[in-house]
């Protein structure tokens, strides 16, 4: 069979795309999972987490920002790429202060789910133990920067969907951190609401809604029931908004 001109190949599998789509868009549409943390269909891609790195033409590109091109041969689910993905996940674990057993997000956390998906058994690198500020000023929303992975999802959600521009990332290198767009720098002084996409899109336990801790018992949470490669194929901002 001769493939159409608008076809890419991911690990040998033929995948159609429409011009303008990224490799990630085409893969998700064809139910092919490429690991990702900072990407959420419906929001503009960022390309910062680097979990979705795939190999094409001898180099590695981030699937969420690379344009699909006719005939492109892409390697995705390979031992080398998955090893790199695990190292990157371990980097995120040691950079922040992640406390899975006592984190309210456990079972609903994408970082944790990614670690399970990749078969991560330890953090490998030495922990950075960075001091990071907590913001508990808002009546309904808590911000614990210790668990932030700088994925920029809340920044984009607040800017592009909520239209409130509550968050930004500031600082360079390992000093990069989430900041809040108010004179006091506190969440309480922003228009953010618990129903905003920015308040609920956090893949980890950095932004938590207050007063609902453990409403869903551990064992019955998202990734207790399904794997991240299943849920990752079905996410879309429009769906997320309906669920709210």
């Amino acid at each position, binding site marked *: 069979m001769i493939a159409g001109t608008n076809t890419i190949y991911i690990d040998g599998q033929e995948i159609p795309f429409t011009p303008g789509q990224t490799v990630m868009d085409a893969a998700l549409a064809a139910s092919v999972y490429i690991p990702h943390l900072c990407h959420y269909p419906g929001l503009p891609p960022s390309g910062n987490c680097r979990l979705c790195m795939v190999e094409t033409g001898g180099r*590695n590109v981030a699937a969420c920002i690379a344009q699909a091109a006719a005939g492109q041969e892409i390697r995705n689910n390979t031992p080398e790429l998955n090893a790199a993905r695990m190292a990157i996940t371990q*980097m995120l674990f040691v*950079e922040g202060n992640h406390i899975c057993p006592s984190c309210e997000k456990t079972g609903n956390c994408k970082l944790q789910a990614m670690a399970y998906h990749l078969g991560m058994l330890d953090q490998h690198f030495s922990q950075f133990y960075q001091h990071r500020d907590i913001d508990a000023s808002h009546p309904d929303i808590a911000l614990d920067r210790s668990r932030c992975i700088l994925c920029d999802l809340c920044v984009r959600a607040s800017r592009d969907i909520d239209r409130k521009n509550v968050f930004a990332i500031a600082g360079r290198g390992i000093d990069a951190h989430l900041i809040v767009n108010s004179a006091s720098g506190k969440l309480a002084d922003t228009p953010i609401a618990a129903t905003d996409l920015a308040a609920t899109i956090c893949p980890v336990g950095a932004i938590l809604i207050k007063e609902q801790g453990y409403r869903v018992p551990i064992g019955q949470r998202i990734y207790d029931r399904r794997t991240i490669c299943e849920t990752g194929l079905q996410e879309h901002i429009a769906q997320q908004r309906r669920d709210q």
Partner: protein
Amino acid sequence: METREHLLHRLQAIQRQFRHIPPQAMQQAATDYQLPLSQVAAVVAFYSFFSTQPRGRFDILFSNCTSCGYLVEGENLLQILCRQLQTVPGKTRADDLVSIDETSCIGMCDHGASMLVNGIPITGLNLEKLARIAQRVTDAIPVQHWPVEWFAIVDTVHRRDLLLAKHPVPGSALRQAFSQGAGETLAIIRRSGLRGRGGAGFDTGKKWQLSRDTSGNTRYVVCNADEGEPGTFKDRLLLHEYAEELFEGMTLCAFIIGATQGFIYLRGEYRYLLPQLQSALKRRRSRGLLGARILKQRNFDFDIAIVVGAGAYICGEESALIESLEGKPGIPRIRPPFPVTHGYLGQPTVVNNVETFIAAAHITVHGADWFKAAGTTASAGTKILSVSGDCGKPGIYEYPFGVTIRQVLDDCAAVAAQAVQIGGPSGALLGPAAFDRTLAFDDVSTGGSVLVFGQQHDLLTIHRNFARFFAHESCGFCTPCRVGTQLLQNTLDNIAAGRGATADIEELQQLGKIVQRQSHCGLGHTAANHVLDSLRQFPQVFPNRMRSPFTARFDLDQALASTRRITRQNDAAAHLDQHK
């Protein structure tokens, strides 16, 4: 054209006036520029030369480069000055008199240890000069009353070729271009084989052609004068003595692509060059070489504005530079689209190195064959090198492409070099076995930095310096670079402290590959080169420090430091006896 002051300039003025950026000034800037406060705060946090805590009235920043850094013959000049002025690095003295810290390479590598005092460079530091500086700071003598000769920066050119031998008559390239037309001028540039001098080597004529062929309302010409690669200082010479040719080359590019506005993005460390660059621009305007109807051409208006950076190596990456021009943190964009089609304000933008524009001006005057006669087939013309480190004649050398490393080392009087770093920390580390290789785009490519390391130099110290540089300069956008550069630094520091295990060799290899292959931009792609090069060529550098196959990766006593801080107990009982 924008008439409002650039956001970076506003913030620089505030920093100078208040010695920091106070919250209300950020708020005011956000209001005036109609930006979210968080964007102004992100800009302030991104650039090294802005601070949110007051710096001293004498704000001293030592360069920490291997060539113009503060470690000189076993002495730590930064620590010495701190002791003399009774202060500690990174903290402003209680009476606000002085703050002392370090900064990435300030481009004074041919002048030995150097510092910026309130933004102005002082070179050739030694113990005697340091004592005199300390005295003046103590006596609170304003910097403008310090000896004038301390601030003189002499450019030493040891070899001149196509670009440095003679200055073309100002306006001659433009006259030539106007008489033969934009199309023919571009054809000549293309025929010359000119490639970008920043190091990446993209075909300059092709870049200009692409921009010319792209539809867009406005086009921009941008000169990348943000030479932040440690060991590079050739643009310092070019901006100082060859600015006419630079402006001419930019104007030429504008004529070819149809731009009316140009920018020079000048690194903050070279702010001292700003007044003379401004007056040179003014002189060109008065001669009809810039501004409206250049040389009475009816349809050609073009002017150049200078934007001064604020201490961020990443802004040498062209899309980060454009972000910075737009008043944002310098985070590299997603590419494609490339600046040539979607650059400044989303418009077609040509970004070239200082040297590239100068070469284009010369090519227009002298022709493509004149240029191609020098260099090699794939690398036409000459390359201007900044040579520093362990050599008798540091300075500027212009060679035809294809020159061997050995030739350069001989000419600069380097005796028995154990290694050279070509292209700065992001380039290639090469040992004697590679000294017969040539400098060319298809062999060893360089933006101009040549760092020579003699036998007395400990390579592990060099690696730690480079690793620290990248960790400090990583923009923090992507995980492998943000965390990986820090992990590389930590691993090398551990090895140097005698806490490395043989497994760390494999660790460096793996980590290096991840940073190199998975990062978002050129900074990450090249940040581990020096370590990977060394593992191949100098494998003994790392295991030499290792005591056994297994060593604890952390210092147990050091790990208790935070406990001691919290409990406010620091007596013998709060320490482990490591020797038991």
